[in-house]
């Protein structure tokens, strides 16, 4: 990272942050390698796979070159990234993020499990011990991280190209921070950006570095070619974004790039470097639909539908999408109408049709019927004809089904079809079995075998694992990946973070990193550009070249941001729009973009601030954190609206009103975060979402969800470990979210998250584990033999939605209140008056002693994912831990005599009551860390009307005792002449029930008051892990 830092620093900090965020969150194996290599390389021993995400997020630590992190935002970023970084650096183990930390633990556990399935309990105990050790390390790491953080403001910014939702969240947080520190940010030197994009930008801007480029060709859906030169280390996302820009395509999440690989076509992983996926030069790809929208009419733009039509015409003509004669005729007639317009007897002689191919075996009879029908479509516009085409095509039974050849356990040739609803098994053309996503508990592959573990049928007790034999291991992995992606895209609200280094030697960490359908729908709802003009290239004329110019800066802007047009013109706005683009897309697509503009003027600065806000929102919308799911989405919408309004204001110039709105917006998120905390418990209770979605499987799923807690606690099996990991992941996300939500309050939000992370990390990471992880990391290479994925967790998320909605109401109310308050403050103390707020957030965790417990608790707090995962686990347990192979379940189910994946689950560990479990082992270490960061923004003068606030100082003090962890954030900001000092304390009380939480809380508040007599306590949030109750006082 250090190496890149210099060059990338100039790029907008925001961008970098975003990028870093993405990088951080991208758990994908690729990310670590590609982007964070610099930092990770020294530690690469650990292996690229697991560390990547962690590295990314915490990339900064190593980059000590830059030492400007006074802002609060940094505080947040510090926490997360530094930990990760430090852990890495200090302990070879990957303690990077909570997720990572967990993962390391998991790998150990899993290994143990693998080695001894029966000795799960032992493993559990070991894990605990490890966790404690880890905790210690974490703490140390935290300290170190903080230090490092100071140096590297936003270490996470390293990987811009990767655009994981998680990352985005982080970015939001950063963005928030930046807002505070806008001036600072502008001046700040960017953090290290390892991403090629960033580099590209730099080059474009500064041309300081020369980059090796690789020529690259993409065959577009209309048959034309798009060529470009890519930086050698470019990720798939960079190319994909370039292509989408070229196509003027905004709803791009349904699409992907395919490349040929040993006679098989594979999807280019956007988060990985291209060169690591495509072995052969030249780079040639085809642009294709990856996820077929089940209801194309819900697409926002005609241009998206047009590309979908092109894909379907290909599919139909090639026979991939079988149609009956009648349907060929009907679809063909719509194609003619769309491409030729109304039938014209003079122009359209009998030959015109033979230039089109409607079917694999096109007959004269068919062509005649097509013409007949074409005549009846008179008056239909091209867009209408496309819509009609899609309405009919979507009903085809094989629409959106990705077929993979396989053999069942008896060696019979079958096909596995992956689709939006699940996995379909075909024999010849007949569907002989179907596994809806809710029914699938786990998807895995080992060598050339692909396994699914399915929920027991209604009257059955045992889960069954069904195995399929694929031609080779690559095919098995490809199928597995497709399953993971489809499940995530169609079933989840937000992507799941990739697991980190679960297995010592085996295991793909791959996870879908793009937007889910839910997210992309939300995002596309925000598209409000005028319908872009595009020319329908006739399907008969394949060689036609697109009229679109290469990537133009202006064009890019337009494409990228909904408000692009407007933004382009006004400098401030323009910068804003650019930012949006970046956020929305998560990418910095074109190096050509001029991020510099943003910083140049004061006005730009304002924009910058603005951008910060906007960014978070967009990110939320597009890449909502998995845990918060719908609430966030809705919130995001709201926030977007607000932001939009704010943008308008900004055009006029920063006005007090602007500020007010701005602040209010920020406050909302904070409250939202609070709500989130409470949510988890609810979520736990209402797990059976699958029922809603799947009427078939309701019974099975329903029961499982209820028992979450117990199950979670008791399971120490590998699965459990995984769950924990996931939970940790969720935690991370959550933390991020919180940070994002509480823009103003960034510190508090971040603190809790950090603390949690620390705990979880500690629990999960044991020294031994870490070492193992490092060793295991090497296995992450693309050649992994094994991969596991548990879709079920996700399914549970659905449930969450409902609950969240309820919460939303609360949130809204709170938001309003907050907003008003904030506004008042601002107005009341227009100038020179200081607003002092002390936010005391006390997190009381009753039983956090055991590592596991802590992890779980943390999960409870915010992590929906965790909940889900746990739920799954519970279900497993409920059903019977012993994996069972049921041959009888379905008539044609292929049973595998040896359940490959089952092993893991067979291990059952005794602790049933996690909460009860109080480990005395708590680390007695008392650590106190004080960080003071002072930063002066380039434009400290309040005179700059655009300044949202300049961060004067930010201080973070963390002290830990046996039972409590106190994190204090002191932030001083100047906004338009008004200085504001905010002190936020987060106190985490961990311990047995013996501890009098009330007393501890009272003590904490008392201390806070004593320490800051001239300040008022504005808010106390108590979150009890044991109880679901959440109290707020203001």
């Amino acid at each position, binding site marked *: 990272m250090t190496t890149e830092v210099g060059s990338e620093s100039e790029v907008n900090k925001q961008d970098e942050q975003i990028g870093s965020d993405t990088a951080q969150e991208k758990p994908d194996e690729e990310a670590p390698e590609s982007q964070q290599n610099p930092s990770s390389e020294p530690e690469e021993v650990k292996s690229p796979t697991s560390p990547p995400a962690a590295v990314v997020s915490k990339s900064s630590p190593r980059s000590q070159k830059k030492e400007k992190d006074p802002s609060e935002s940094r505080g947040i970023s510090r926490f997360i990234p530094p930990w990760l970084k430090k852990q890495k650096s200090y302990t070879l183990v990957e303690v990077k993020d909570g997720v990572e930390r967990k993962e390391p633990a998991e790998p150990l556990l899993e290994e143990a499990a693998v080695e001894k399935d029966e000795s799960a309990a032992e493993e559990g105990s070991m894990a605990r011990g490890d966790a404690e050790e880890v905790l210690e390390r974490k703490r140390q790491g935290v300290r170190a991280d903080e230090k490092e953080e100071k140096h590297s403001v936003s270490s996470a910014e390293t990987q811009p190209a990767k655009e994981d939702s998680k990352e985005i969240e982080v970015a939001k947080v950063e963005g928030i921070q930046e807002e505070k520190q806008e001036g600072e940010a502008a001046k700040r030197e960017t953090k290290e950006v390892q991403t090629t994009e960033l580099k590209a930008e730099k080059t474009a801007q500064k041309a300081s570095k020369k980059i090796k480029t690789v020529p690259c060709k993409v065959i577009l859906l209309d048959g034309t070619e798009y060529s470009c030169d890519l930086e050698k280390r470019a990720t798939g996302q960079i190319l994909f974004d370039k292509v989408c820009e070229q196509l003027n395509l905004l709803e791009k999440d349904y699409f992907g790039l395919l490349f040929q690989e040993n006679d098989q076509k594979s999807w280019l992983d956007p988060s990985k470097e291209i060169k690591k996926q495509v072995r052969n030069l030249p780079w040639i790809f085809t642009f294709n639909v990856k996820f077929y929208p089940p209801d194309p009419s819900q697409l926002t733009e005609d241009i998206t539908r047009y590309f979908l039509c092109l894909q379907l015409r290909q599919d139909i003509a090639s026979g991939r999408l079988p149609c009956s004669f009648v349907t060929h005729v009907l679809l063909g007639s719509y194609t003619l109408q769309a491409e030729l317009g109304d039938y014209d007897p003079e122009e359209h002689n009998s030959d015109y049709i033979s230039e089109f191919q409607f079917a694999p075996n096109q007959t004269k009879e068919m062509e005649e019927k097509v013409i007949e029908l074409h005549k009846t479509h008179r008056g239909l516009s091209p867009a209408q004809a496309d819509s009609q085409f899609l309405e009919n095509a979507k*009903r*085809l*039974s094989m629409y959106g089904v990705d077929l993979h050849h396989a053999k069942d356990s008896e060696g019979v040739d079958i096909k596995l079809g992956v689709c939006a609803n699940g996995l379909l098994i075909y024999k010849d053309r*007949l569907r002989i079995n179907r596994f809806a996503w809710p029914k699938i508990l786990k998807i895995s592959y080992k060598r050339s075998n692909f396994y699914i573990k399915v929920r027991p049928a209604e009257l059955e007790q045992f889960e069954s694992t069904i195995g399929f034999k694929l031609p080779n291991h690559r095919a098995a992995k490809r199928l597995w990946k497709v399953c993971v992606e489809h499940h995530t895209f169609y079933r989840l609200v937000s992507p799941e973070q990739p697991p980190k280094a679960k297995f010592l030697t085996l295991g793909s960490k791959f996870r879908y990193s793009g937007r889910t359908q839910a997210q992309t729908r939300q995002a596309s709802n925000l598209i409000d550009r005028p319908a872009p003009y595009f020319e329908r290239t006739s399907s008969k004329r394949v060689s036609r070249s697109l009229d679109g110019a290469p990537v133009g800066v202006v064009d890019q802007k337009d494409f990228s941001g909904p408000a692009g047009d407007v933004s382009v013109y006004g400098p401030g706005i323009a910068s804003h729009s650019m930012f949006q683009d970046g956020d929305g897309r998560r990418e910095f697509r074109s190096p050509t973009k001029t991020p510099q503009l943003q910083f140049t003027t004061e006005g730009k600065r304002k924009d910058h601030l603005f951008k910060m806000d906007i960014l978070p929102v967009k990110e939320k919308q597009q890449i909502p954190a998995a845990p918060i799911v719908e609430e966030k989405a809705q919130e995001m919408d709201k926030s977007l609206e607000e932001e939009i309004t704010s943008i308008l204001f900004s055009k006029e110039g920063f006005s007090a009103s602007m500020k007010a709105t701005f602040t209010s917006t920020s406050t909302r998120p904070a409250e939202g975060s609070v709500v989130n905390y409470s949510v988890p418990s609810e979520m736990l209770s209402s797990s059976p979402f699958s029922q809603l979605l799947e009427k078939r499987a309701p019974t099975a799923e329903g029961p499982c969800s209820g028992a979450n807690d117990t199950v979670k606690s008791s399971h120490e099996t590998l699965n459990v470990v995984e769950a924990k990991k996931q939970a940790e992941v969720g935690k991370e996300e959550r933390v991020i979210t919180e940070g994002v939500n509480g823009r103003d309050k960034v510190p508090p939000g971040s603190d809790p998250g950090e603390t949690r992370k620390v705990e979880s990390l500690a629990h999960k990471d044991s020294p031994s584990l870490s070492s193992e992880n490092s060793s295991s990391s090497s296995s992450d290479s693309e050649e992994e033999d094994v991969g596991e994925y548990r879709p079920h967790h996700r399914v549970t998320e659905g449930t969450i939605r409902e609950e969240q909605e309820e919460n939303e109401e609360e949130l809204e109310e709170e938001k309003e209140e907050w907003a008003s308050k904030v506004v008042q403050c601002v107005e009341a103390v227009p100038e020179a008056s200081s607003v002092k707020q002390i936010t005391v957030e006390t997190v009381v965790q009753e039983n956090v002693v055991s590592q596991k417990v802590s992890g779980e608790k943390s999960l409870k707090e915010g992590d929906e994912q965790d909940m889900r995962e746990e739920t799954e686990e519970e279900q497993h347990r409920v059903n019977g831990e012993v994996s069972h192979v049921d041959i009888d379940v*379905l*008539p044609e189910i292929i049973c595998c005599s040896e359940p490959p994946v089952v092993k893991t689950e067979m291990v059952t560990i005794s602790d049933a009551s996690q909460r009860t479990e109080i480990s005395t082992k708590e680390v007695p270490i008392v650590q106190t860390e004080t960080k003071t960061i002072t930063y002066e923004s380039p434009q400290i003068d309040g005179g700059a009307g655009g300044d949202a606030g300049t961060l004067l100082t930010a201080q973070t003090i963390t002290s830990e005792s046996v039972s409590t962890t106190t994190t204090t954030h002191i932030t001083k900001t100047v906004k338009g002449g008004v200085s504001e000092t905010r002190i936020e304390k987060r106190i985490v009380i961990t311990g047995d029930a013996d501890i009098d939480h009330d007393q501890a809380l009272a003590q904490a508040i008392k201390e806070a008051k004593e320490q800051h007599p001239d300040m008022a306590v504005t808010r106390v949030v108590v979150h009890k892990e044991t109880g679901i109750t959440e109290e707020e006082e203001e």
Partner: protein
Amino acid sequence: MGTPGEGLGRCSHALIRGVPGSLGREGEGVAVDLPPLDLAKAQREHGVLGGKLRQRLGLQLLELPPEEQLPFGPLLGDIAVVHGDTALITRPWSPARRPEVDGVRKTLQDLGLRIMEIKDENATLDGTDVLFTGREFFVGLSKWTNHRGAEIVADTFRDFAVSTVPVSGPSHLRGFCGMGGPRTVVAGSSEAAQKAVRAMAALTDHPYASLTLPDDAAADCLFLRSGLPGASPFLLHRGSGDLPNSQEVLQKLPDVTLVPVSCSELEKAGAGLSSLCLVLSTRPHS
């Protein structure tokens, strides 16, 4: 393709075939253990059925003449699978019944349907093993229908998912289940019926309601839309004379006009409502 579900049961014509005197007699190459049959009653029932199709449902009724050498000719539901403008002429499991296809094919062809035939000699398919739900096909793998036969159904109706359902017991798939509405599957209460319904539920992408009837045979009903698009659809079903226990449950079906008929005597020859008539629409897409 039409609109899924809403096209279910749309019909303008009904095709039946008269009951020959040979139906009640054993031998004739059709060695089946059938109870003695009252031929006159069977023919009466058949006549009543035709009358209801024509007058009650308003369908244009085409009646093929009985042929003595084709004792099971009246069960022409086994001979063809018709959907939309396409008719798949089956290859009945019983070699003795295969000559039945000729007359049916010609009639359907004359009606303007696209005729598909099974040329694979390894394939066997009885039309009453095929259930069309409006959205997809289920093909029962019974003693009469094999995988290859089902595959040809899939090949013929490519727009639709075609799933196979194992059928245990002495019945065709349609012998114990049918459609009670666009989204409603009715099924008998026998173990075989319930097992098949569960299998179908697992195989489908679409949500169906399911109605369980006390009698398997009562589920062998026909959901028909013969009138104008807005008119209430009909459910042709076995009446109280045949299956008194199932009548009450059938009343639960919403939005259908129940048309009871009796075929208890024909049932002795293995017939059911789904096998006694073929319904089709000559303008499937209108």
